[in-house]
C-alpha cells in the first residue's frame, strides 16, 4: 500500500496512492486507520482520488474509520471519490454517512469550520 499521512491542526489527512482499495491492501489500510483514528483528532480526511475501484474489504476499512470516530462525533470526509467507488458505496447504503469533497483544500476548510 502506498500512502501519506499528514497532520494539520488535529485534522488528519490520509492520502491513499493505490488505484484499487481491495483485499490485497485492506489489512494494511485498516491497520493504519486504527492508529490514526484517535478520539483527540478533529476530523479524518480520506483522500481517495487515485482509487478507481473498491471491494467489500476496502469498504470495510472505510467503515472501520467511521465506527472508530462516529462515537466521538468526529467526521470522516472523503475526497475525490470516483464514480465506481461511489456506486459501490451507494449499493451498500453507506454513502450518506460521509461528507464528500472534491479537493483536500475544500475538505480541510470544512473541517476547520467545525
Amino acid at each position, binding site marked *: 500500500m502506498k500512502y501519506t499521512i499528514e497532520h494539520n491542526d488535529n485534522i488528519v489527512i490520509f492520502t491513499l496512492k493505490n488505484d484499487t482499495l481491495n483485499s490485497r491492501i485492506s489489512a494494511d489500510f485498516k491497520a493504519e486507520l486504527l492508529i490514526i483514528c484517535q478520539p483527540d483528532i478533529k476530523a479524518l480526511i480520506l483522500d481517495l482520488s487515485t482509487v478507481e475501484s473498491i*471491494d467489500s474489504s476496502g469498504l470495510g476499512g472505510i*467503515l472501520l474509520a467511521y465506527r472508530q470516530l462516529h462515537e466521538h462525533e468526529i467526521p470522516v470526509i472523503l475526497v475525490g471519490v470516483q*464514480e465506481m467507488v461511489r456506486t459501490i458505496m451507494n449499493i451498500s447504503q453507506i454513502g450518506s*454517512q460521509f461528507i464528500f469533497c472534491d479537493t483536500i483544500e475544500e475538505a480541510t476548510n470544512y473541517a476547520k469550520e467545525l
Partner: protein
Amino acid sequence: MTSQTLNKKQLINTQIKLMNANLNHIAKFKTFTKTENLESIRKFIFKNSTKFGFNEYKAEELVLAVDEACTNLIKHAYKSDSQSSITIEIKSNKTNLIVNIIDNSPAFDPRYVKDPNMIEYRDEYRKGGLGIFIMKSLVDSIDYKTINNGEFKNILTLVKQLK
C-alpha cells in the same frame, strides 16, 4: 422460504436454462486458489467483458462481482489453501454475458445468504455478508448448482445483461 420467493427463483432458473440453450463459448481461465491470482481473474473478466460490448463501467461492475465471488472461495471455502483451483468460463448470447465459476470446495449456495442489515453493519463491528451482497447487486441474476460426475463441482453462474 415463501412461495413467492420460490416462484421468483423458479422463474430465474427457467430464464437461465433458456439462455443456456443458445450460448457461445467465449473463454476459459483456470487458476490456483491464491489471492495473488485475483488480479489475473480481474484482467480476464475485464478483457472479455469489454470485448463482448460492455462499456468500462459495466465491465468493472462484473469484474467486482466475480472478484467478490472468488475472494470468498479463496478465503472462506479454501481457507487460503493455494493447491486447489478455480475455473472461470465465459459464455454469451446476444444480450447476456454469463460467467460460470467452477470449483471443488464444499457446497455453498450464496443465493440463500441473507442480505446484511446495513444500518447494523455500518454502526456495529459486524463482519461477513457484504461481499456476497455486493456481488448480487452488480449482476442481473445468479444461479448455483452442484454436479457430481465422479468429481464434485460447484457451479456459480453470474449473468449480466448488455443493456
